[in-house]
Protein backbone atom coordinates (compact mmCIF):
# COMPACT_ATOMS: atom_id res chain seq x y z
CA UNK A 1 0.00 0.00 0.00
CA UNK A 2 1.16 3.46 -0.79
CA UNK A 3 3.12 5.43 1.73
CA UNK A 4 3.53 2.72 4.33
CA UNK A 5 7.01 1.67 3.36
CA UNK A 6 9.79 2.96 5.58
CA UNK A 7 12.45 4.79 3.71
CA UNK A 8 16.03 5.43 4.64
CA UNK A 9 17.39 6.73 1.42
CA UNK A 10 20.57 8.71 1.81
CA UNK A 11 24.11 9.23 0.64
CA UNK A 12 27.02 7.12 1.76
CA UNK A 13 30.72 7.95 1.31
CA UNK A 14 31.36 6.39 -2.06
CA UNK A 15 29.02 8.73 -3.96
CA UNK A 16 26.39 6.05 -4.13
CA UNK A 17 22.73 6.86 -3.58
CA UNK A 18 20.79 3.96 -2.19
CA UNK A 19 17.03 3.96 -1.71
CA UNK A 20 15.00 1.26 -0.11
CA UNK A 21 11.28 0.74 0.20
CA UNK A 22 9.06 2.89 -1.93
CA UNK A 23 10.41 5.50 -4.31
CA UNK A 24 7.19 7.27 -5.19
CA UNK A 25 5.62 10.68 -5.48
CA UNK A 26 5.22 10.66 -1.68
CA UNK A 27 8.94 11.32 -1.20
CA UNK A 28 9.53 13.17 -4.46
CA UNK A 29 10.67 16.44 -2.89
CA UNK A 30 13.08 14.68 -0.49
CA UNK A 31 14.53 12.49 -3.22
CA UNK A 32 15.03 15.49 -5.47
CA UNK A 33 16.93 17.31 -2.72
CA UNK A 34 19.04 14.26 -1.86
CA UNK A 35 20.03 13.65 -5.47
CA UNK A 36 20.85 17.35 -5.88
CA UNK A 37 23.25 17.07 -2.94
CA UNK A 38 25.24 14.26 -4.58
CA UNK A 39 28.27 14.75 -6.83
CA UNK A 40 27.94 14.29 -10.56
CA UNK A 41 28.50 10.80 -11.87
CA UNK A 42 26.92 9.20 -8.79
CA UNK A 43 25.75 5.63 -8.68
CA UNK A 44 22.06 5.10 -7.92
CA UNK A 45 21.41 1.74 -6.32
CA UNK A 46 17.82 0.61 -6.76
CA UNK A 47 18.20 -2.98 -5.63
CA UNK A 48 16.24 -2.41 -2.42
CA UNK A 49 13.40 -0.48 -4.03
CA UNK A 50 10.15 -2.33 -3.60
CA UNK A 51 7.82 0.09 -5.30
CA UNK A 52 8.43 2.84 -7.78
CA UNK A 53 6.09 5.07 -9.69
CA UNK A 54 6.68 7.34 -12.67
CA UNK A 55 7.69 10.26 -10.46
CA UNK A 56 10.42 8.22 -8.80
CA UNK A 57 11.46 6.93 -12.18
CA UNK A 58 11.57 10.47 -13.54
CA UNK A 59 13.89 11.63 -10.76
CA UNK A 60 16.28 8.74 -11.42
CA UNK A 61 16.07 9.26 -15.18
CA UNK A 62 16.76 12.96 -14.78
CA UNK A 63 19.87 12.22 -12.74
CA UNK A 64 21.16 9.91 -15.47
CA UNK A 65 20.35 12.49 -18.16
CA UNK A 66 21.71 15.62 -16.55
CA UNK A 67 24.17 14.43 -13.95
CA UNK A 68 25.74 11.39 -15.58
CA UNK A 69 24.42 9.05 -12.92
CA UNK A 70 24.67 5.28 -13.29
CA UNK A 71 21.79 3.05 -12.24
CA UNK A 72 22.50 -0.31 -10.69
CA UNK A 73 20.35 -3.06 -9.29
CA UNK A 74 17.18 -2.12 -11.14
CA UNK A 75 14.75 -4.98 -11.50
CA UNK A 76 12.98 -5.59 -14.78
CA UNK A 77 9.85 -3.71 -13.79
CA UNK A 78 11.83 -0.67 -12.73
CA UNK A 79 13.90 -0.70 -15.92
CA UNK A 80 10.60 -0.70 -17.79
CA UNK A 81 9.42 2.36 -15.88
CA UNK A 82 12.71 4.16 -16.53
CA UNK A 83 12.29 3.47 -20.24
CA UNK A 84 8.72 4.73 -20.04
CA UNK A 85 9.65 8.13 -18.69
CA UNK A 86 12.67 8.40 -20.98
CA UNK A 87 10.35 7.85 -23.91
CA UNK A 88 7.94 10.53 -22.64
CA UNK A 89 10.71 13.07 -22.11
CA UNK A 90 9.58 16.14 -24.03
CA UNK A 91 9.98 19.63 -22.64
CA UNK A 92 6.58 21.30 -22.45
CA UNK A 93 5.86 24.94 -21.77
CA UNK A 94 3.41 25.38 -18.94
CA UNK A 95 2.00 28.78 -19.87
CA UNK A 96 1.93 30.57 -23.21
CA UNK A 97 4.86 32.87 -23.86
CA UNK A 98 4.35 36.39 -22.61
CA UNK A 99 6.26 39.51 -23.32
CA UNK A 100 7.45 41.14 -20.16
CA UNK A 101 8.64 44.64 -19.24
CA UNK A 102 7.90 47.82 -21.15
CA UNK A 103 7.30 46.10 -24.47
CA UNK A 104 4.73 43.88 -22.79
CA UNK A 105 2.97 46.93 -21.38
CA UNK A 106 2.95 48.68 -24.73
CA UNK A 107 1.62 45.53 -26.34
CA UNK A 108 -1.14 45.25 -23.76
CA UNK A 109 -2.19 48.88 -24.16
CA UNK A 110 -2.18 48.52 -27.92
CA UNK A 111 -4.27 45.37 -27.74
CA UNK A 112 -6.75 47.07 -25.42
CA UNK A 113 -7.11 50.02 -27.80
CA UNK A 114 -7.60 47.77 -30.83
CA UNK A 115 -10.06 45.70 -28.82
CA UNK A 116 -12.09 48.75 -27.82
CA UNK A 117 -12.18 49.93 -31.42
CA UNK A 118 -13.27 46.49 -32.57
CA UNK A 119 -16.00 46.33 -29.93
CA UNK A 120 -17.30 49.73 -30.98
CA UNK A 121 -17.28 48.82 -34.65
CA UNK A 122 -19.01 45.56 -33.82
CA UNK A 123 -21.64 47.40 -31.80
CA UNK A 124 -22.38 49.75 -34.70
CA UNK A 125 -22.62 46.76 -37.02
CA UNK A 126 -24.95 45.04 -34.60
CA UNK A 127 -27.08 48.19 -34.38
CA UNK A 128 -27.41 48.07 -38.17
CA UNK A 129 -28.36 44.38 -38.12
CA UNK A 130 -30.95 45.08 -35.43
CA UNK A 131 -32.49 47.97 -37.38
CA UNK A 132 -32.74 45.74 -40.44
CA UNK A 133 -34.36 43.13 -38.21
CA UNK A 134 -36.89 45.67 -36.99
CA UNK A 135 -37.55 46.76 -40.57
CA UNK A 136 -38.15 43.17 -41.69
CA UNK A 137 -40.52 42.59 -38.81
CA UNK A 138 -42.36 45.85 -39.47
CA UNK A 139 -42.65 45.08 -43.18
CA UNK A 140 -44.49 41.83 -42.59
CA UNK A 141 -45.78 42.09 -39.04
CA UNK A 142 -48.38 39.34 -39.34
CA UNK A 143 -45.76 36.81 -40.30
CA UNK A 144 -42.60 37.97 -38.59
CA UNK A 145 -43.82 39.53 -35.36
CA UNK A 146 -43.44 37.05 -32.49
CA UNK A 147 -46.17 38.09 -30.10
CA UNK A 148 -45.53 35.33 -27.57
CA UNK A 149 -41.84 36.06 -27.31
CA UNK A 150 -42.48 39.78 -26.95
CA UNK A 151 -45.13 39.36 -24.27
CA UNK A 152 -42.89 36.98 -22.37
CA UNK A 153 -40.07 39.56 -22.45
CA UNK A 154 -42.49 42.29 -21.31
CA UNK A 155 -43.26 40.13 -18.32
CA UNK A 156 -39.61 39.37 -17.50
CA UNK A 157 -38.24 42.86 -18.09
CA UNK A 158 -41.20 44.87 -16.83
CA UNK A 159 -43.68 43.16 -14.57
CA UNK A 160 -41.16 41.14 -12.62
CA UNK A 161 -39.02 44.22 -12.00
CA UNK A 162 -41.87 46.12 -10.32
CA UNK A 163 -41.09 44.91 -6.81
CA UNK A 164 -37.41 45.73 -6.68
CA UNK A 165 -37.65 48.98 -8.65
CA UNK A 166 -40.57 50.14 -6.51
CA UNK A 167 -38.76 49.44 -3.28
CA UNK A 168 -35.53 51.02 -4.50
CA UNK A 169 -37.28 54.18 -5.71
CA UNK A 170 -39.31 54.49 -2.54
CA UNK A 171 -36.12 54.37 -0.47
CA UNK A 172 -34.37 56.84 -2.75
CA UNK A 173 -37.32 59.21 -2.32
CA UNK A 174 -36.85 59.01 1.44
CA UNK A 175 -33.09 59.56 1.15
CA UNK A 176 -33.49 62.63 -1.05
CA UNK A 177 -36.12 64.01 1.32
CA UNK A 178 -34.00 63.38 4.36
CA UNK A 179 -30.73 64.74 2.92
CA UNK A 180 -32.52 67.76 1.44
CA UNK A 181 -34.32 68.53 4.68
CA UNK A 182 -31.10 68.43 6.72
CA UNK A 183 -29.37 70.91 4.42
CA UNK A 184 -32.33 73.22 3.80
CA UNK A 185 -33.32 73.36 7.46
CA UNK A 186 -30.21 75.45 8.07
CA UNK A 187 -31.80 78.22 6.00
CA UNK A 188 -35.29 77.66 7.36
CA UNK A 189 -36.24 76.50 3.88
CA UNK A 190 -37.45 72.94 4.57
CA UNK A 191 -40.40 73.46 2.31
CA UNK A 192 -38.05 73.49 -0.68
CA UNK A 193 -37.44 69.80 0.03
CA UNK A 194 -40.57 69.26 -2.06
CA UNK A 195 -38.99 71.07 -5.02
CA UNK A 196 -35.95 68.89 -4.67
CA UNK A 197 -37.91 65.65 -4.51
CA UNK A 198 -40.27 66.55 -7.32
CA UNK A 199 -37.74 67.81 -9.78
CA UNK A 200 -34.82 65.46 -9.24
CA UNK A 201 -36.92 62.30 -9.33
CA UNK A 202 -38.83 63.19 -12.49
CA UNK A 203 -35.96 64.78 -14.36
CA UNK A 204 -33.09 62.51 -13.43
CA UNK A 205 -33.21 59.82 -10.81
CA UNK A 206 -36.43 58.03 -11.72
CA UNK A 207 -35.14 57.20 -15.19
CA UNK A 208 -31.47 56.80 -14.31
CA UNK A 209 -31.97 54.45 -11.39
CA UNK A 210 -34.45 52.41 -13.39
CA UNK A 211 -31.96 52.19 -16.24
CA UNK A 212 -29.26 50.96 -13.87
CA UNK A 213 -31.60 48.39 -12.40
CA UNK A 214 -32.78 47.21 -15.82
CA UNK A 215 -29.17 46.97 -17.02
CA UNK A 216 -28.32 44.85 -14.00
CA UNK A 217 -31.42 42.67 -14.19
CA UNK A 218 -32.23 42.37 -17.87
CA UNK A 219 -29.13 43.51 -19.75
CA UNK A 220 -27.11 40.87 -17.95
CA UNK A 221 -29.81 38.26 -18.52
CA UNK A 222 -29.86 39.02 -22.25
CA UNK A 223 -26.10 38.60 -22.51
CA UNK A 224 -26.06 35.39 -20.49
CA UNK A 225 -29.02 33.86 -22.35
CA UNK A 226 -27.73 34.63 -25.82
CA UNK A 227 -24.19 33.70 -24.80
CA UNK A 228 -25.27 30.29 -23.55
CA UNK A 229 -27.35 29.75 -26.67
CA UNK A 230 -24.30 30.61 -28.72
CA UNK A 231 -22.19 28.05 -26.84
CA UNK A 232 -24.75 25.28 -27.22
CA UNK A 233 -25.01 26.10 -30.94
CA UNK A 234 -28.71 26.95 -30.61
CA UNK A 235 -28.13 30.13 -32.55
CA UNK A 236 -26.39 28.25 -35.34
CA UNK A 237 -29.27 25.78 -35.37
CA UNK A 238 -31.72 28.70 -35.78
CA UNK A 239 -29.76 30.04 -38.72
CA UNK A 240 -29.72 26.66 -40.48
CA UNK A 241 -33.46 26.26 -40.03
CA UNK A 242 -33.85 29.69 -41.57
CA UNK A 243 -34.94 31.62 -38.49
CA UNK A 244 -33.09 34.90 -38.11
CA UNK A 245 -31.63 35.07 -34.59
CA UNK A 246 -31.87 38.84 -34.71
CA UNK A 247 -35.60 38.72 -35.43
CA UNK A 248 -36.34 35.86 -33.06
CA UNK A 249 -34.12 36.78 -30.13
CA UNK A 250 -32.89 40.35 -30.37
CA UNK A 251 -35.99 42.19 -31.62
CA UNK A 252 -38.32 40.95 -28.85
CA UNK A 253 -35.74 41.83 -26.20
CA UNK A 254 -35.18 45.28 -27.66
CA UNK A 255 -38.90 45.92 -27.86
CA UNK A 256 -39.38 44.83 -24.29
CA UNK A 257 -36.63 47.12 -23.03
CA UNK A 258 -37.79 50.09 -25.13
CA UNK A 259 -41.44 49.77 -24.11
CA UNK A 260 -40.88 48.85 -20.49
CA UNK A 261 -38.27 51.46 -19.65
CA UNK A 262 -40.63 54.51 -19.79
CA UNK A 263 -43.35 52.62 -17.91
CA UNK A 264 -40.94 51.49 -15.22
CA UNK A 265 -39.39 54.96 -15.03
CA UNK A 266 -42.77 56.59 -14.52
CA UNK A 267 -43.58 54.05 -11.84
CA UNK A 268 -40.19 54.68 -10.22
CA UNK A 269 -40.85 58.45 -10.19
CA UNK A 270 -44.21 57.95 -8.50
CA UNK A 271 -42.74 55.60 -5.92
CA UNK A 272 -39.89 58.03 -5.17
CA UNK A 273 -42.32 60.90 -4.77
CA UNK A 274 -44.44 58.68 -2.52
CA UNK A 275 -41.40 57.90 -0.37
CA UNK A 276 -40.40 61.55 -0.23
CA UNK A 277 -44.00 62.58 0.53
CA UNK A 278 -44.30 60.15 3.42
CA UNK A 279 -40.96 61.33 4.76
CA UNK A 280 -41.91 65.02 4.62
CA UNK A 281 -45.23 64.24 6.23
CA UNK A 282 -43.66 62.39 9.14
CA UNK A 283 -40.43 64.33 9.59
CA UNK A 284 -41.37 67.84 8.47
CA UNK A 285 -45.09 67.81 9.33
CA UNK A 286 -46.09 68.76 5.79
CA UNK A 287 -49.54 67.22 5.18
CA UNK A 288 -49.99 65.18 1.98
CA UNK A 289 -52.41 67.68 0.41
CA UNK A 290 -49.94 70.54 0.80
CA UNK A 291 -47.20 68.29 -0.54
CA UNK A 292 -49.19 67.46 -3.68
CA UNK A 293 -50.28 71.04 -4.22
CA UNK A 294 -46.74 72.36 -3.93
CA UNK A 295 -45.39 69.55 -6.06
CA UNK A 296 -47.72 70.58 -8.89
CA UNK A 297 -46.70 74.23 -8.56
CA UNK A 298 -42.93 73.68 -8.62
CA UNK A 299 -42.46 70.72 -10.98
CA UNK A 300 -43.03 71.77 -14.59
CA UNK A 301 -44.52 69.28 -17.01
CA UNK A 302 -41.33 69.47 -19.06
CA UNK A 303 -39.47 67.71 -16.22
CA UNK A 304 -41.65 64.69 -16.72
CA UNK A 305 -41.06 64.79 -20.47
CA UNK A 306 -37.31 65.04 -19.91
CA UNK A 307 -37.42 61.88 -17.82
CA UNK A 308 -39.75 59.95 -20.09
CA UNK A 309 -38.06 60.87 -23.39
CA UNK A 310 -34.76 59.53 -22.12
CA UNK A 311 -36.23 56.26 -20.88
CA UNK A 312 -36.82 54.40 -24.18
CA UNK A 313 -33.42 55.49 -25.46
CA UNK A 314 -31.77 54.05 -22.37
CA UNK A 315 -33.79 50.88 -22.77
CA UNK A 316 -32.64 50.59 -26.36
CA UNK A 317 -28.99 50.99 -25.38
CA UNK A 318 -29.22 48.45 -22.56
CA UNK A 319 -30.84 45.80 -24.75
CA UNK A 320 -28.51 46.55 -27.64
CA UNK A 321 -25.36 46.15 -25.55
CA UNK A 322 -26.73 43.12 -23.71
CA UNK A 323 -27.66 41.26 -26.90
CA UNK A 324 -24.47 42.35 -28.65
CA UNK A 325 -22.23 41.04 -25.87
CA UNK A 326 -24.21 37.82 -25.70
CA UNK A 327 -23.61 37.25 -29.41
CA UNK A 328 -19.87 37.83 -28.92
CA UNK A 329 -19.50 34.74 -26.72
CA UNK A 330 -17.20 32.16 -28.23
CA UNK A 331 -15.31 29.21 -26.83
CA UNK A 332 -16.01 28.36 -23.23
CA UNK A 333 -18.30 29.02 -20.30
CA UNK A 334 -15.94 31.61 -18.84
CA UNK A 335 -16.73 33.86 -21.79
CA UNK A 336 -20.38 33.98 -20.76
CA UNK A 337 -19.38 35.48 -17.44
CA UNK A 338 -16.96 37.96 -19.00
CA UNK A 339 -19.42 39.12 -21.63
CA UNK A 340 -22.23 39.44 -19.12
CA UNK A 341 -20.08 41.68 -16.97
CA UNK A 342 -19.07 43.68 -20.03
CA UNK A 343 -22.74 44.05 -21.00
CA UNK A 344 -23.71 45.58 -17.66
CA UNK A 345 -20.65 47.82 -17.35
CA UNK A 346 -20.89 49.13 -20.91
CA UNK A 347 -24.65 49.63 -20.71
CA UNK A 348 -24.44 51.67 -17.52
CA UNK A 349 -21.51 53.66 -18.87
CA UNK A 350 -23.30 54.47 -22.12
CA UNK A 351 -26.50 55.36 -20.25
CA UNK A 352 -24.65 57.87 -18.10
CA UNK A 353 -22.81 59.38 -21.08
CA UNK A 354 -26.12 59.77 -22.90
CA UNK A 355 -27.73 61.20 -19.80
CA UNK A 356 -25.13 63.95 -19.79
CA UNK A 357 -25.77 64.64 -23.47
CA UNK A 358 -29.51 64.82 -22.79
CA UNK A 359 -28.97 67.19 -19.86
CA UNK A 360 -27.11 69.65 -22.06
CA UNK A 361 -29.61 69.24 -24.86
CA UNK A 362 -32.73 69.84 -22.77
CA UNK A 363 -31.17 72.85 -21.05
CA UNK A 364 -30.29 74.40 -24.40
CA UNK A 365 -33.84 74.00 -25.74
CA UNK A 366 -35.08 75.83 -22.67
CA UNK A 367 -36.55 72.95 -20.67
CA UNK A 368 -34.90 74.05 -17.47
Amino acid at each position, binding site marked *: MAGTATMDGGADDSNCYRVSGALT*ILRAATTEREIAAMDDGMTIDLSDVERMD*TVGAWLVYRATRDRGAKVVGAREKITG*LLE*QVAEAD*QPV*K*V*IPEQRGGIMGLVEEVGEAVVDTGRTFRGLVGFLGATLIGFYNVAKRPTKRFRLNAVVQRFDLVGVRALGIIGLMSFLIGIVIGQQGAVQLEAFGAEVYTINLIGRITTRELGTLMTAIMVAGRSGSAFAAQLGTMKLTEEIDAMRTIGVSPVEALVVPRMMAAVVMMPLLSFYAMIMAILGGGIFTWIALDIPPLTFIQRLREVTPMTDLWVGLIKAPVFGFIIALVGCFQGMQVE*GDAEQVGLKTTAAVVQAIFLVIVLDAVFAVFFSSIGWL
Partner: protein
Amino acid sequence: MSKISPILPEGEDAVISIRGLRNAFGEQVIHENLDFDVKRGEIIGVVGGSGTGKSVLMRSIIGLQTPDQGTIEVLGEDMVGRDEDEAKNIRRRWGVLFQAGALFSTLTVAENVEVPLREYFHMSTRLMDEIASYKIAMAGLPANAGPKYPSELSGGMIKRAGLARALALDPELLFLDEPTAGLDPISAQNFDELILSLRSKLDLTVFLITHDLDTLYAICDRVAVLADKKVIAAGTIEQLLALDHPWIQEYFNGPRGRAAAAA
Protein backbone atom coordinates in the same frame (compact mmCIF):
# COMPACT_ATOMS: atom_id res chain seq x y z
CA MET B 1 -20.64 -18.74 -7.64
CA SER B 2 -21.09 -18.86 -11.36
CA LYS B 3 -18.48 -17.39 -13.64
CA ILE B 4 -20.55 -14.39 -14.56
CA SER B 5 -21.46 -13.36 -11.03
CA PRO B 6 -20.72 -9.69 -10.33
CA ILE B 7 -19.16 -10.82 -7.04
CA LEU B 8 -15.64 -12.20 -7.19
CA PRO B 9 -14.90 -15.54 -5.50
CA GLU B 10 -13.12 -15.53 -2.15
CA GLY B 11 -9.39 -14.92 -2.39
CA GLU B 12 -9.50 -12.69 -5.47
CA ASP B 13 -8.04 -9.24 -4.95
CA ALA B 14 -10.94 -6.80 -5.34
CA VAL B 15 -10.03 -3.15 -5.82
CA ILE B 16 -13.63 -2.02 -5.71
CA SER B 17 -16.21 -3.94 -3.75
CA ILE B 18 -19.85 -2.86 -3.60
CA ARG B 19 -22.56 -4.59 -1.58
CA GLY B 20 -26.27 -3.82 -1.34
CA LEU B 21 -26.01 -0.42 -3.01
CA ARG B 22 -29.19 1.61 -3.33
CA ASN B 23 -29.44 4.94 -5.11
CA ALA B 24 -32.65 6.82 -5.68
CA PHE B 25 -33.60 10.28 -6.84
CA GLY B 26 -36.89 10.98 -5.14
CA GLU B 27 -39.30 8.28 -6.23
CA GLN B 28 -37.06 7.05 -9.01
CA VAL B 29 -34.89 4.15 -7.88
CA ILE B 30 -31.69 3.83 -9.92
CA HIS B 31 -29.90 1.04 -8.09
CA GLU B 32 -31.43 -1.48 -5.73
CA ASN B 33 -29.39 -4.06 -3.86
CA LEU B 34 -26.49 -3.80 -6.31
CA ASP B 35 -23.41 -5.97 -5.78
CA PHE B 36 -20.26 -5.54 -7.81
CA ASP B 37 -16.53 -6.29 -7.60
CA VAL B 38 -13.61 -5.06 -9.70
CA LYS B 39 -10.47 -7.17 -9.83
CA ARG B 40 -7.03 -5.63 -9.40
CA GLY B 41 -5.27 -5.01 -12.69
CA GLU B 42 -8.21 -5.60 -14.99
CA ILE B 43 -9.92 -3.30 -17.46
CA ILE B 44 -13.61 -3.62 -16.76
CA GLY B 45 -16.16 -2.18 -19.13
CA VAL B 46 -19.51 -1.12 -17.71
CA VAL B 47 -22.39 -1.17 -20.17
CA GLY B 48 -26.12 -0.68 -19.92
CA GLY B 49 -28.94 1.13 -21.64
CA SER B 50 -29.42 4.86 -21.22
CA GLY B 51 -30.70 5.69 -17.76
CA THR B 52 -29.56 2.46 -16.13
CA GLY B 53 -27.26 4.42 -13.87
CA LYS B 54 -23.77 3.78 -15.21
CA SER B 55 -22.61 7.29 -14.41
CA VAL B 56 -24.44 7.24 -11.08
CA LEU B 57 -22.58 4.04 -10.20
CA MET B 58 -19.26 5.70 -10.99
CA ARG B 59 -20.21 8.82 -9.08
CA SER B 60 -21.14 6.68 -6.07
CA ILE B 61 -17.80 4.92 -6.13
CA ILE B 62 -15.78 8.12 -6.35
CA GLY B 63 -17.87 9.78 -3.68
CA LEU B 64 -19.74 12.40 -5.68
CA GLN B 65 -23.05 10.76 -4.89
CA THR B 66 -23.94 9.54 -1.41
CA PRO B 67 -25.83 6.27 -1.68
CA ASP B 68 -29.03 5.69 0.30
CA GLN B 69 -27.86 2.26 1.41
CA GLY B 70 -25.02 -0.16 0.96
CA THR B 71 -21.28 -0.32 1.37
CA ILE B 72 -18.60 0.68 -1.09
CA GLU B 73 -15.01 -0.36 -0.52
CA VAL B 74 -12.33 1.10 -2.73
CA LEU B 75 -8.70 -0.03 -2.38
CA GLY B 76 -9.66 -1.71 0.86
CA GLU B 77 -11.15 1.39 2.44
CA ASP B 78 -14.79 1.89 3.24
CA MET B 79 -15.95 4.95 1.32
CA VAL B 80 -19.47 5.59 2.61
CA GLY B 81 -19.69 8.11 5.43
CA ARG B 82 -16.00 9.04 5.39
CA ASP B 83 -15.05 12.47 6.54
CA GLU B 84 -13.46 14.74 3.98
CA ASP B 85 -9.86 14.48 5.22
CA GLU B 86 -9.74 10.71 5.19
CA ALA B 87 -11.51 10.56 1.85
CA LYS B 88 -8.87 12.87 0.41
CA ASN B 89 -6.11 10.37 1.10
CA ILE B 90 -7.98 7.68 -0.80
CA ARG B 91 -9.00 10.00 -3.60
CA ARG B 92 -5.38 10.69 -4.31
CA ARG B 93 -4.99 7.06 -5.32
CA TRP B 94 -7.40 7.21 -8.22
CA GLY B 95 -7.81 9.35 -11.31
CA VAL B 96 -11.03 10.25 -13.07
CA LEU B 97 -11.59 11.22 -16.67
CA PHE B 98 -14.99 12.84 -17.00
CA GLN B 99 -17.08 12.51 -20.09
CA ALA B 100 -16.49 16.03 -21.36
CA GLY B 101 -12.95 16.22 -20.00
CA ALA B 102 -13.89 18.69 -17.23
CA LEU B 103 -10.63 20.56 -17.71
CA PHE B 104 -10.39 23.79 -15.76
CA SER B 105 -11.04 26.35 -18.45
CA THR B 106 -8.96 29.13 -16.90
CA LEU B 107 -5.82 26.99 -16.75
CA THR B 108 -3.58 25.67 -19.52
CA VAL B 109 -3.29 21.95 -20.13
CA ALA B 110 0.01 21.76 -18.23
CA GLU B 111 -1.43 23.76 -15.33
CA ASN B 112 -4.42 21.43 -15.30
CA VAL B 113 -2.09 18.47 -14.85
CA GLU B 114 -0.30 20.31 -12.07
CA VAL B 115 -3.47 20.99 -10.06
CA PRO B 116 -3.50 17.63 -8.23
CA LEU B 117 0.28 17.85 -7.69
CA ARG B 118 -0.08 21.25 -6.10
CA GLU B 119 -3.01 20.14 -4.00
CA TYR B 120 -1.31 17.13 -2.44
CA PHE B 121 2.43 17.72 -2.52
CA HIS B 122 5.05 20.35 -1.94
CA MET B 123 7.62 20.07 -4.64
CA SER B 124 9.78 22.37 -6.67
CA THR B 125 8.19 24.16 -9.60
CA ARG B 126 10.80 22.62 -11.88
CA LEU B 127 9.91 19.08 -10.86
CA MET B 128 6.21 19.85 -11.15
CA ASP B 129 6.66 21.24 -14.66
CA GLU B 130 8.68 18.19 -15.62
CA ILE B 131 6.09 15.81 -14.25
CA ALA B 132 3.38 17.66 -16.17
CA SER B 133 5.55 17.43 -19.30
CA TYR B 134 6.03 13.68 -19.27
CA LYS B 135 2.42 13.03 -18.26
CA ILE B 136 1.32 15.07 -21.26
CA ALA B 137 3.66 13.03 -23.45
CA MET B 138 2.40 9.76 -21.96
CA ALA B 139 -1.17 10.78 -22.73
CA GLY B 140 -0.07 11.11 -26.33
CA LEU B 141 -0.21 14.88 -26.64
CA PRO B 142 2.42 16.87 -28.52
CA ALA B 143 4.66 19.25 -26.57
CA ASN B 144 2.94 22.35 -27.94
CA ALA B 145 -0.34 21.32 -26.27
CA GLY B 146 1.06 22.16 -22.83
CA PRO B 147 0.59 25.94 -22.86
CA LYS B 148 -2.79 25.79 -24.64
CA TYR B 149 -6.11 26.53 -22.99
CA PRO B 150 -8.90 23.93 -23.14
CA SER B 151 -10.94 26.13 -25.49
CA GLU B 152 -8.15 25.85 -28.06
CA LEU B 153 -8.16 22.03 -28.10
CA SER B 154 -10.04 19.53 -30.25
CA GLY B 155 -12.30 16.89 -28.69
CA GLY B 156 -9.68 14.16 -28.84
CA MET B 157 -7.03 16.40 -27.34
CA ILE B 158 -9.37 17.39 -24.50
CA LYS B 159 -9.81 13.69 -23.63
CA ARG B 160 -6.06 13.16 -23.70
CA ALA B 161 -5.46 16.22 -21.55
CA GLY B 162 -8.12 14.97 -19.12
CA LEU B 163 -6.33 11.63 -19.08
CA ALA B 164 -2.99 13.33 -18.38
CA ARG B 165 -4.59 15.08 -15.40
CA ALA B 166 -6.18 11.83 -14.20
CA LEU B 167 -2.73 10.21 -14.34
CA ALA B 168 -1.00 13.07 -12.54
CA LEU B 169 -0.64 11.30 -9.20
CA ASP B 170 0.22 7.86 -10.59
CA PRO B 171 -3.12 6.39 -9.58
CA GLU B 172 -3.74 2.71 -8.99
CA LEU B 173 -7.25 3.03 -10.26
CA LEU B 174 -8.51 4.92 -13.28
CA PHE B 175 -12.14 5.82 -13.93
CA LEU B 176 -13.06 6.64 -17.50
CA ASP B 177 -16.55 7.89 -18.37
CA GLU B 178 -17.18 7.25 -22.06
CA PRO B 179 -13.63 8.11 -23.10
CA THR B 180 -14.17 7.44 -26.80
CA ALA B 181 -17.60 9.08 -27.15
CA GLY B 182 -17.49 11.85 -29.72
CA LEU B 183 -14.13 10.78 -31.14
CA ASP B 184 -13.60 9.75 -34.73
CA PRO B 185 -12.88 6.02 -35.19
CA ILE B 186 -9.15 6.56 -35.65
CA SER B 187 -8.81 8.70 -32.53
CA ALA B 188 -11.00 6.24 -30.64
CA GLN B 189 -8.77 3.36 -31.69
CA ASN B 190 -5.66 5.31 -30.71
CA PHE B 191 -7.24 6.07 -27.37
CA ASP B 192 -7.99 2.37 -26.82
CA GLU B 193 -4.39 1.51 -27.55
CA LEU B 194 -3.24 4.25 -25.22
CA ILE B 195 -5.32 2.84 -22.37
CA LEU B 196 -3.99 -0.66 -23.01
CA SER B 197 -0.38 0.47 -23.04
CA LEU B 198 -0.81 2.63 -19.94
CA ARG B 199 -2.40 -0.26 -18.11
CA SER B 200 0.52 -2.56 -18.79
CA LYS B 201 3.12 0.11 -18.07
CA LEU B 202 1.62 1.61 -14.95
CA ASP B 203 -0.20 -1.38 -13.38
CA LEU B 204 -3.56 0.32 -13.57
CA THR B 205 -6.98 -1.01 -12.82
CA VAL B 206 -9.41 0.65 -15.23
CA PHE B 207 -13.12 1.19 -14.65
CA LEU B 208 -14.51 2.10 -18.01
CA ILE B 209 -18.02 3.23 -18.85
CA THR B 210 -18.59 2.95 -22.55
CA HIS B 211 -21.09 2.48 -25.32
CA ASP B 212 -18.38 1.78 -27.78
CA LEU B 213 -18.59 -1.90 -28.74
CA ASP B 214 -15.23 -1.75 -30.46
CA THR B 215 -13.63 -0.57 -27.23
CA LEU B 216 -15.32 -3.38 -25.32
CA TYR B 217 -13.98 -6.02 -27.68
CA ALA B 218 -10.56 -4.43 -28.04
CA ILE B 219 -9.47 -3.70 -24.50
CA CYS B 220 -11.85 -4.95 -21.81
CA ASP B 221 -10.91 -8.03 -19.81
CA ARG B 222 -14.42 -8.26 -18.40
CA VAL B 223 -17.69 -6.49 -19.10
CA ALA B 224 -20.28 -5.70 -16.45
CA VAL B 225 -23.89 -5.27 -17.55
CA LEU B 226 -26.17 -2.89 -15.70
CA ALA B 227 -29.87 -3.66 -16.04
CA ASP B 228 -32.89 -4.00 -13.75
CA LYS B 229 -31.21 -1.71 -11.17
CA LYS B 230 -28.34 -4.19 -10.67
CA VAL B 231 -25.18 -5.46 -12.22
CA ILE B 232 -26.84 -8.53 -13.69
CA ALA B 233 -23.63 -10.10 -14.90
CA ALA B 234 -19.92 -9.51 -15.22
CA GLY B 235 -17.62 -11.63 -17.33
CA THR B 236 -15.88 -11.94 -20.65
CA ILE B 237 -17.98 -11.20 -23.69
CA GLU B 238 -18.11 -14.91 -24.59
CA GLN B 239 -19.46 -15.71 -21.14
CA LEU B 240 -22.06 -12.97 -21.42
CA LEU B 241 -23.13 -14.14 -24.87
CA ALA B 242 -24.01 -17.51 -23.40
CA LEU B 243 -26.57 -15.81 -21.18
CA ASP B 244 -30.20 -15.72 -22.11
CA HIS B 245 -30.95 -12.13 -21.26
CA PRO B 246 -32.83 -10.12 -23.89
CA TRP B 247 -30.87 -6.89 -23.45
CA ILE B 248 -27.49 -8.64 -23.54
CA GLN B 249 -28.47 -10.64 -26.62
CA GLU B 250 -29.72 -7.57 -28.40
CA TYR B 251 -26.68 -5.55 -27.39
CA PHE B 252 -23.99 -7.98 -28.51
CA ASN B 253 -25.92 -9.70 -31.29
CA GLY B 254 -27.35 -6.59 -32.92
CA PRO B 255 -25.82 -5.51 -36.22
CA ARG B 256 -23.33 -3.22 -34.49
CA GLY B 257 -22.39 -5.84 -31.93
CA ARG B 258 -21.70 -8.40 -34.64
CA ALA B 259 -19.71 -5.91 -36.68
CA ALA B 260 -17.55 -5.17 -33.65
CA ALA B 261 -17.10 -8.86 -32.91
CA ALA B 262 -15.98 -9.51 -36.45
CA ALA B 263 -13.39 -6.75 -36.32
